[in-house]
């Protein structure tokens, strides 16, 4: 076979292969597709062998076989991956009963669970396991032992529940970890790993969130305006095909009908703005009230945290349970009470439901954020207080050590001093502020879990029980009127999940056990909430789509990620670590461990490289360059958007023109009208078909004389063209009227020969004028 034939055959084989891969995109019957596939595969098999002859046959056959194996492996892997996804049946059941919006919450929960599982893997595998396996055991050094005065109560359940006692001095919290530079046989650098895992978990979360956001935004529509196709979309896309339950279907029917009727009414009459002043006043009043409540809740949290600091100084036995857990209790209570309060106040505002929902979500977001940050600031004061106390204790320990040495040398009169050997439980301890912060976050998470589960139990389950069983002996219909069954609060739950994750991100650096706790929590949440939703809730009356909101919640998550990263990074950079607990004890700042690693473990030139890279003279130009790059990309994207809009307008105009042309109407587009007015001599742009054929006829006559035409095609043709058009426009009295008669025979002036008035023709040596 020749080379040409080979390449052609190769192309055909490639084409058949492409056909096979796109076969399922064609809307054919299965039978037809099957036949097509069989043909294509036979063809490929037959000729692939033939192509393999000649040089490189073995290599070609090998390549083909490897590609086939790779494709098969990919397919099996995809199947395996889909089989591994947990809870698919459960979520599908919820979806068929409640529609896609409620199911989107569970899909979000599952996604969070996956992310937390990966974070847990990092923390557990790279920090906890090395310390537990290769580090010093419990009781060997002071930081790993319960102090003597706490040992009596260390095993009490109430103490353990508060994360004191044995919990506090375990691998769950920061204080347990030793600051040895390398541990074990493998010289595992634990402090470095701790710092890198802490920072790396933020990096991983960021990457995952952004990747999901990008994937979600690709699935969106073409970017048409919302108002463009309201009715058509309502008609064609409003039914949710996943609904498999007749009760949900009835609800869906009702909501579709309501939305149809609403849109019809909206379209028919304009909104009359009655008494705009009253509405504005009410809206301002509502916003004021909400601001007041936000401020009030922030102040309440601050006050409570301050009080808890005074409690911490008092003896534990004098405090009641309420006083000990005041902070968490108050925060959870606020999270429960304020959102319904906002909703009631928002009824003053009389917004459209979708806008009202957005306001509500924004306010709840502000509430949670304010609470979290107030909590953080109050915690910060506590940390500073602890740091001060640490100074005094550090001085005291140094003083005690000096005393021991002086006594020793006095008594024994020798210079060789043996170090003090005290039982680790008796050593004087500093107030390990990092562990204290970790404990606070743990307690907050635990109380959050408790509140969520209790709300579901009481708010949904007991309410459903009451409605179901009391209905038999109650005066009014409990199921139809108040209180009736609860609806699943999607936005509240999603926001709760997002904020919980923010707390985990903030606290994970100080309490490695927190991520494990969260994984457990998400796992139980999934089962518990699935059960609760199927048992106690009813489908929504007004069903709203979840599709576009997915990126909204992801955006919130991204924001929370940044906001929770700030405190952690701040503490790593600024606050000095405790002197006697944690992997960074003894250093001035936590990031010193990186500098130490660069100095001792990496080759020398890397060290100099890093010092050069950290030079402000290099960093500032780099920052400037990035700012310029952002500005450039911003302007490029604006230009693209503008071009897009122009194209869209052009398409719209063309569509309108087509419409008008088909209906033989005048051009209603003002731009086109102006254009036509500006060009009186030329034939009208929206010429009818008959005019077109009239133009074509004289040109075909010209075709009889090709030789004359070809000599100077450019100028002559255009000259002729312009002249022809002038002739045509002169011949037609009113160009805007429909042409009802074919054009009559033209006078001699219209003959092409007479119009060959070529500029400077005679002197060009073209011979005599034709036709004369």
């Amino acid at each position, binding site marked *: 076979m020749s080379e040409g034939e080979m390449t052609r055959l190769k192309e055909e084989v490639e084409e058949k292969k492409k056909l*096979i891969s796109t*076969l*399922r*995109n064609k*809307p054919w*019957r*299965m*039978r037809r*597709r*099957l036949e097509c*596939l069989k043909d294509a595969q036979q063809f490929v098999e037959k000729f692939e062998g033939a192509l393999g002859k000649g040089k490189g046959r073995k290599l070609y056959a090998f390549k083909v076989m490897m590609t086939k194996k790779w494709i098969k492996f990919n*397919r099996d892997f995809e*199947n395996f991956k*889909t*089989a591994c996804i947990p809870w698919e049946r459960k979520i*599908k059941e919820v979806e*068929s009963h409640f529609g*896609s919006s409620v199911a989107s919450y569970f899909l979000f929960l599952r996604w969070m669970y996956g992310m937390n599982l990966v974070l847990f893997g990092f923390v557990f595998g790279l920090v906890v396991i090395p310390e537990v396996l290769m580090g010093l055991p419990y009781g060997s050094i002071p930081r790993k032992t319960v102090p003597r005065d706490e040992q009596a109560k260390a095993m009490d359940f109430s103490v353990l529940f508060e994360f004191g006692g044995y919990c506090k001095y375990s691998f769950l919290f920061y204080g347990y970890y030793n600051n040895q530079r390398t541990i074990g046989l493998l010289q595992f650098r634990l402090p470095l790993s701790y710092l890198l895992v802490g920072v790396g978990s933020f990096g991983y979360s960021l990457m995952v969130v952004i990747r999901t956001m990008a994937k979600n935004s690709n*699935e*969106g*529509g*073409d*970017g*048409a305006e919302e108002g*463009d*196709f*309201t*009715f*058509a*979309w309502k*008609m*064609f*896309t*409003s*039914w949710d*095909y*996943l*609904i*498999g*339950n*007749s009760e*949900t*279907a*009835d609800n869906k*029917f*009702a909501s*579709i*009908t309501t939305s*149809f*009727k609403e*849109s*019809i009414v909206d379209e*028919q009459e304009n909104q009359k703005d009655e008494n705009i002043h009253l509405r504005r006043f009410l809206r301002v009043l509502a916003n004021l009230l909400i601001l007041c409540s936000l401020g009030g809740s922030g102040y309440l949290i601050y006050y409570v945290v301050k009080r808890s600091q005074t409690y911490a100084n008092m003896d534990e036995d004098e405090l009641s349970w309420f006083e000990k857990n005041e902070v968490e209790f108050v925060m959870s209570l606020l999270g429960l009470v304020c959102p319904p309060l906002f909703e009631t106040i928002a009824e003053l505002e009389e917004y459209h439901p979708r806008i009202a929902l957005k306001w509500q979500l924004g306010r709840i977001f502000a509430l949670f954020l304010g609470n979290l940050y107030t909590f953080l600031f109050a915690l910060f004061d506590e940390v500073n207080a602890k740091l001060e106390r640490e100074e005094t204790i550090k001085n005291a320990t140094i003083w005690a050590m000096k005393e021991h040495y002086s006594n020793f040398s006095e008594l024994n009169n020798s210079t060789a001093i043996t170090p003090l050997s005290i039982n680790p439980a008796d050593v004087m301890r500093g107030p390990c502020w990092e562990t204290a912060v970790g404990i606070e976050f743990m307690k907050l998470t635990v109380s959050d879990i408790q509140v969520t589960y209790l709300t579901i139990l009481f708010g949904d389950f007991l309410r459903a029980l009451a409605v179901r069983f009391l209905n038999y002996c109650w005066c009014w219909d409990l199921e139809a009127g108040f209180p009736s069954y609860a609806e699943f609060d999607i936005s509240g739950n999603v926001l709760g999940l997002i904020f919980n994750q923010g707390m985990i991100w903030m606290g994970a650096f100080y309490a490695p056990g927190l991520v494990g706790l969260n994984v457990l929590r998400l796992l139980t949440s999934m089962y518990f909430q699935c059960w609760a939703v199927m048992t106690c809730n009813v489908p929504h009356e007004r069903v709203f*789509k979840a*599709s*576009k909101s997915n990126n909204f919640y992801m955006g919130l998550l991204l924001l929370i990620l940044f906001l929770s990263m700030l405190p952690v990074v701040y503490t790593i950079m600024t606050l000095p670590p405790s002197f006697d607990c944690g992997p960074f004890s003894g250093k001035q700042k936590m990031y010193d461990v990186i500098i130490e690693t660069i100095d001792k473990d990496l080759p020398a030139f890397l060290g100099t490289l890093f010092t050069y890279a950290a030079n402000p003279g290099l960093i500032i130009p780099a920052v400037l360059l990035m700012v310029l790059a952002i500005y450039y990309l911003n302007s490029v994207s604006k230009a693209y958007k503008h071009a897009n809009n122009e194209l869209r307008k052009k398409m719209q105009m063309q*569509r309108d023109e*087509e*419409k008008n042309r*088909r209906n033989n109407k005048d051009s209603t587009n003002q731009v086109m009208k102006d254009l036509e007015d500006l060009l009186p001599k030329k034939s009208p742009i929206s010429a009818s078909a008959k005019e077109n054929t009239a133009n074509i006829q004289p040109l075909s006559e010209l075709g009889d004389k090709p030789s004359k035409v070809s000599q100077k095609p450019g100028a002559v043709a255009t000259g002729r063209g312009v002249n022809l058009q002038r002739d045509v426009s002169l011949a037609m009295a009113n160009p805007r009227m429909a042409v009802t008669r074919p054009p009559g025979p033209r006078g001699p002036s219209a003959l092409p020969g007479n119009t060959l008035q070529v500029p400077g023709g005679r002197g060009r040596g073209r011979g005599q004028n034709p036709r004369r």
Partner: protein
Amino acid sequence: KSFYDCELTFLTKQEILLAHKRFTELVAKEDRNDPSPRVPMSKILTLPELKSNPFRKRICHVFSTSESKDGSLTFEDFLDLLSAFSDSATLEIKSHYAFRIFDFDDDGTLDRGDLEKLVNCLTGETDDTRLTPEEMKQLINNILEESDIDKDGTVNLSEFQHVISRSPDFVSSFKIVL
């Protein structure tokens, strides 16, 4: 055969096996030995995924390859159905089949009669949820104004696809999973 099906449909291997299992449950006992059994529409409509769907009869008719136009499906038709409604199907496939489902009189365009039947399907069976004739007329006028580009009083396939491709909700709601 299932090896081929992976390339012919948008379904994964597990989904195809599950579909086969559910389909054979519906096959009547006397047809069990038939190499390509055909299940009548009445049995297909007992599937929980289709039971509450207002377009269930149309879906069966669209995917059916029977000459008697009775809406019965073979296993291949059933796979076609699931593939078109699956999560990974493309927008073109979904909009193509959506158009055919909405085309009640099978004439290749959506005229006023088709749109009226469509609205009636969507607003449910009971009398108090139906629209009045004036509301119906207004609604259909609005729809035609939005989607009918060439103003011939009907919506053809390309106009339909043009409207649908802009919608952000279509792909996620036009989904059936066993």
